[in-house]
Structure formats: structure tokens, C-alpha cells
């Protein structure tokens, strides 16, 4: 099985990361910001896998496992916060929620 070239893998990871970052910066809905953060995390995970494959080390995959579990925890907390916020404010627009200076 021909392996994907190292550079391609990194490029995909980089593109994914940029997409995620752009999403975080552009989207105003908190739910989507959370989704985009997940994309960025996955981009970082992909970079670990590719790098692990490149040097034939298992460390990259170990790191990915860590990343997955951390992402799961983060999503659990983040979603809970978003739910609470929504039930209180009936709104998930990050600018409207934060920019006014009210807590």
C-alpha cells in the first residue's frame, strides 16, 4: 500500500487548521465556533499521525488518542455551557453576548 506522501498529509492538516481558525474568527454562532475548534483539534491530530507515520513511531498515534479524549471532554463541557447559555439568553451570537460588556 503506497503511503501518502508526508508533505501532502501536513498540507491537509494545515488547510484543515486554517479552515477551522477561519471558522472560529468568522462564525458568530457559538455552536459553530465550537465545531470549528474541533476541526482545528483534528488538524493537529492529523499532523501527529502523519508525523508518526513519517518516522515510524507510535508516539504520534498515542498523542492522537490523548487528543481525542481531551476533545471529547472539551465538547462535553462546551456543549453543556452552550446549552445553559441558550436557556438563559435564548441567543448564541457571541458578539451580542460578549460585546455589550454585560456578564
Amino acid at each position: 500500500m503506497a503511503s501518502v506522501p508526508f508533505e501532502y498529509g501536513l498540507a491537509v492538516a494545515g488547510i484543515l487548521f486554517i479552515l477551522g481558525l477561519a471558522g472560529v474568527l468568522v462564525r458568530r454562532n457559538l455552536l459553530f465556533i465550537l465545531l470549528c475548534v474541533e476541526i482545528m483539534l483534528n488538524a493537529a491530530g492529523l499532523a501527529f499521525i502523519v508525523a508518526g507515520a513519517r518516522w515510524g513511531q507510535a508516539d504520534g498515534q498515542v498523542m492522537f488518542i490523548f487528543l481525542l479524549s481531551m476533545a471529547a471532554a472539551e465538547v462535553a463541557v462546551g456543549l453543556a455551557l452552550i446549552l445553559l447559555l441558550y436557556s438563559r439568553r435564548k441567543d448564541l451570537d457571541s458578539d451580542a453576548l460578549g460585546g455589550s460588556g454585560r456578564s
Partner: protein
Amino acid sequence: MSWMWLIPALPLLGFLVLAVLGRSMHWAVVAAVGTGSVGLSMLAAVAAVWGFWVSPPAGGSVTLTLWDWVRAGSFSPSVSLTLDALSAVMILVVTVIGFLIHLYSVRFMAGEEGYSRFFAYMNLFVGSMLLLVLAGNLLLLYLGWEGVGLCSYLLIGFWYSDPENGRSARKAFIVTRIGDVALVIGLFLIATNLGSLDIQEVARKATASWAPGSAIAVAAAALILGGAVGKSAQLPLHTWLPDAMAGPSPVSALIHAATMVTAGVYLIARTHALFVLAPDVMTATAIIGLAGVLVAGFSALAQTNIKRVLAYSTMSQLGYMFLALGVGAWSGAIFHLVTHAFFKSLLFLAAGVVILAMNHEHDIFAMGGLARKTPYTFWTFLLGALALTALPPTTAGFASKELILSRVWESGPGGRILWVLGVLGVFVTSVYTFRLLFTVFGGEPRGAPAHGSGRGAHGGGHGPKPAAHGSAAGKEGLAAGRDGRQAGVVMGVPLAILAVLCIVGGFLDLPRTLGGSPFITRFLETSLPAGTRAGEMPLSTDSILQIVSEAASLLGIPVGWLVSRRAIRVVTQTGGPAARPAFVRFFSGGMGFDWLYERAIVRPFVWLWNVNKRDAADRISDGVGGLSMLLSRAFRWTQNGRVRWYAAGVAVGAALVIAAAVLL
């Protein structure tokens, strides 16, 4: 004696009641509380001294420890009261004179705004003084000391609506504060060296461990002397006393007779064990005292304000007490303190009646002929003046002054010179006293002096109370009506009692030449040793000395009359005090001490303060503040609370860091 604490506690309680509830109380209740608390305290003091007299405690003193004040290692000053012969005499003077002055104030201050405030301060004043004299511990003594200083400030500035009075009050506070600092440093010195501030223990330890004339003993005694000089208005810290006349007359009487200025004399007598170890400081005390006698005496000669004459007179008499302390005549100083309290409070209270009768006029050249207008006041004032000049029929001033002068003569060869100058002081005292007496009470009523600006007539510019006090003015009409006859019963009774005390006070300790009854000296012996006597002079010498000093006093009467004639002519006919000769004006200004201090201390200080207002240190701190304000304005927009904005900030920052890491 376990109830001894009542003596200072009663006036302090009166102060608390009046301070908290005084505003809503009827004036009669205020007067009853204010006078009653001191009166009860007087009864307690009399009872305590009676008990002390009937069954003298072992060791000559009884100590009542109330509680431990502070405990810090081995240093644990306690709140303790000590009654010994010295404090017994003092509490009697303070409470009796204080009570009479309170009684007098009931009428004198009637209708005055701040009636309850006045009595609250007066009670606090007496309470602090009692605490001071009863304290068995130098730290507690210092508490009373500061309390007395505070009250003098409050009462001198009692009519605070006139800024000039506030200035006098501040001056009194600040000038005495200089002495207080010296005293507190002295207390630190004693506490660190002897490990205790208990008065008896300090005396014992100091005598045991400090060599006579050693540097530490001299330093301790000199610092205590500094405190006493400030409080007792001696050179060079005396300038506050003449200005302290801004307060009401009863306050002057209280400050000059029973409280405040006597504290310094008391302090030195109380710590005499330290002074015995420092002969140089004792010499300095005597010289300061004698210089005070003469400087104040000559200054009093040229004053135009009735109360300022008496103020300089107080300073001069305190000078005699310091002279006595300086030659080791401790009990002589205390005896003179007692008799001085009698006649000086009498003089001030009588002067207060005169001032009321003259519608708050203080200028003696605007008075005249008051002997006919207020005969009762005249006779009591005359008795006080005779006591001041040590002339019969009064004995109070005579006995104490002769006691001091004879001890001065005996104190060695240098004592002869001191004695001659002291007798010169007696002569000057007599001259200014009779100048005052003839000017105020003699001749015809002069009304307002010829010169227009009545206020300018007063040496320090402290004119009579401004007419702003409407309520006072209304009352004056009433008072003038009464005073056309007499001082009134409430004010007259204290005058009468004090006049009687002036006449009989000398029998407490008559000189040998008149039979001798060293009652006070013997009573005080348990706490104040007889001191060092270079050699007792024969009775005949004593008699000659007394005749000489009495002659000096008598000579002062005609001279005083002449001075009075001449001063009246100059002031009323040739254009006011400004027309007086230069040396008279020099005396009138208190011999230039105020002038000197103004230029040497006050102005440089104010100048320095003005410079310092814009100094470099301020620039730095202001610059730091300005810079942070600027940065705050610059960066405030980054903190707008938008999550996406922050995320972008994080991203850009990370990009920059990575770029820096890669490129560098």
C-alpha cells in the same frame, strides 16, 4: 483607696456625657453635669487626701493598678494610679481650682453658643490633668500630657469662627508639640535603658545604675526638661502662651492656674531623681527659669491687652518655679505652683469680669476708672495682684516666693547672682502688676482710645472677641447691666473663695522669719527630698534678704503708677501704641521671639514646603500615573469582550511567535 480611680474618671465621665448628649440637654443640665462632675471629683480628691493624711501608707505612696496596658516581653506598662504627697497636693489644686473655674463659667459662658461643648472640653481638660498627676507610670502620664495639650488646643480655639483664634490654637498645639517630641524621645530612652516606665522604679533604677553627670542621665533629664519647657511655656518655647489668650477667660484661668502649664513643673518634680543625676541640666533649668522671669516680666510691662499682661506674668511666675527646680528646691516649686494657682486664677477670673463689663474690650487703655464701676471685682483683683507681688495682707505669693529666693541664695556662690536677678524679677513683677492695676481700675473711664484702630493696639494683634457672636453680645447687655453692680453671685463666689485662699495660702508654709510653719515642705518630704543645701544661712541674713525683696516689690508700686501715667498719656494723646518708643514696642512684641521664629523657622519651612510641592519625587510618581493612564487609553479598545476578537488576537500572536521562532 481602691476608689481612687474615681478622681480622674468622674470628669472624664462628665466629658463623655456632655460630648454625646450635650447638644440636646438644657443649659442648666449641662452646667450641672459639667460642674458637678468636677465637684464630685473634688470631694473624692479631698477624701483621698484626707485618708492619706490620717493614715500615711507605708513608703509614702499608695499605688492602685487598674490593669496591664501593654505586655511586650519584659516591658509591661500598667495603668496604675499613684497617690503620694506630691500628687495629693496636685489633685487638690487641680480639682479645687478647676471646680471654682467651672462654677464661674456657668455664669460667664451663659448664652454662649457651644455651651455644652465648652463644658465637655473643660471636663476633659481637668480629667486629663488628673490622670497626668495621678499616673504611676510615665506612659500613662504621657497620655494625660497629650490630653491636656489637646484640650488646650480645643479651648484656645473655642471661638473658632475667627480664624485668628484658630491660628492661636494651632500655634499652642504645634509649639508645645516640639517639647512633646523631646519628652517622648526621653521616654524611649528611659524605657530602653531601664526597661521600665514605672516612675518609682525608674527613679530607683536610675539612681542605682546611672552615674551622676553621665551622658545618659544628662540626655534623659534634658529631654524631659524639653518637654516641660514646651508645656510650661518657658524659653525658648514660650511663644504660644500669650497667644493662648484667644480663648475665653475661664479657659485662660484653667490653663494658667490648675492645668497645662503646671504640668511641666510637676513633671520635673516628679522625675527629680533623674535631674539630681544631671547637675548641668539643673543649672540649665535654673537659668531658663530666670531668663523666663525677666523676659516675660519686661514683655508684660508693655502689653496693652489685659489678658496678655497676665499671660506674660504667668510665664514669669513659672520661671520662678523652674528656678526653684533648678536649685533643687522641689517643694518650693510645688508650693509656688499652689499659691500661683490661687492668685493667677483669681486674676484671670476677675479680668474676665472686667472684660465682660467692658463689652469684650481687652485694651487696658480703653478701660480706666473701673474701681468705682465694679468695686467688688476691683477688690478681689487687688488681692490677687498683691499676692502676685508678694505684698501683705496676702501671704500666698509672699511665702512661696521667699521660700524659693532663700533657697536660691543658699544654693552656692552662683546662687547669689541668681538671687539678685530674681529680686530684679520681683521688682519688674510689681511694676507691671501695678501698671495694669492703675491703668484698668484707676483714674477716669477713658472709653475708646484716641487712636482709631482699637484692634491694632494689641501686641500680637489678638483683638477682643469679634462682634460676630450675636448671642454673646445679647448676653453682654444683660451682663453689663449686672456688672454695673457686681460680678453676680455665681461668678462672685469663686472670686471670694480664691481671694481668701490668696490671703491665707501662705500659712501653708510661712518662712522662718514669720514664725515658720513648713507644712507643705514637711508634707512633701516623703516624695520630694529636701534637696541639697549648700549651707543654711543664719536667720538674720534671711530677714535682710526678705526685706530687700519686699522693698523691691514696694518700690514697684510708685514706679508702676508712673509707667501707667506715662503710657496712658502716650497712647491716648499722641496717636496710639505706634507712637510709643521703640524699646516699648520691642517689649510689647514679646522681645522679638515671634519675629525671630517667624523668620528663622516658619518662613523657611513654608518656603521649603512650597518648593517641595513641585519636587522631583512628585514628578516621578505623577509620571508613572500619567504613563499608565496613557497606556490604558491606548489598549482599552483591545478589551471589547468579543470572543472572536480575542481568538483572532490569540491566532495572530501565535503566528508571530512561530514566525519569530522560525525566522530567528
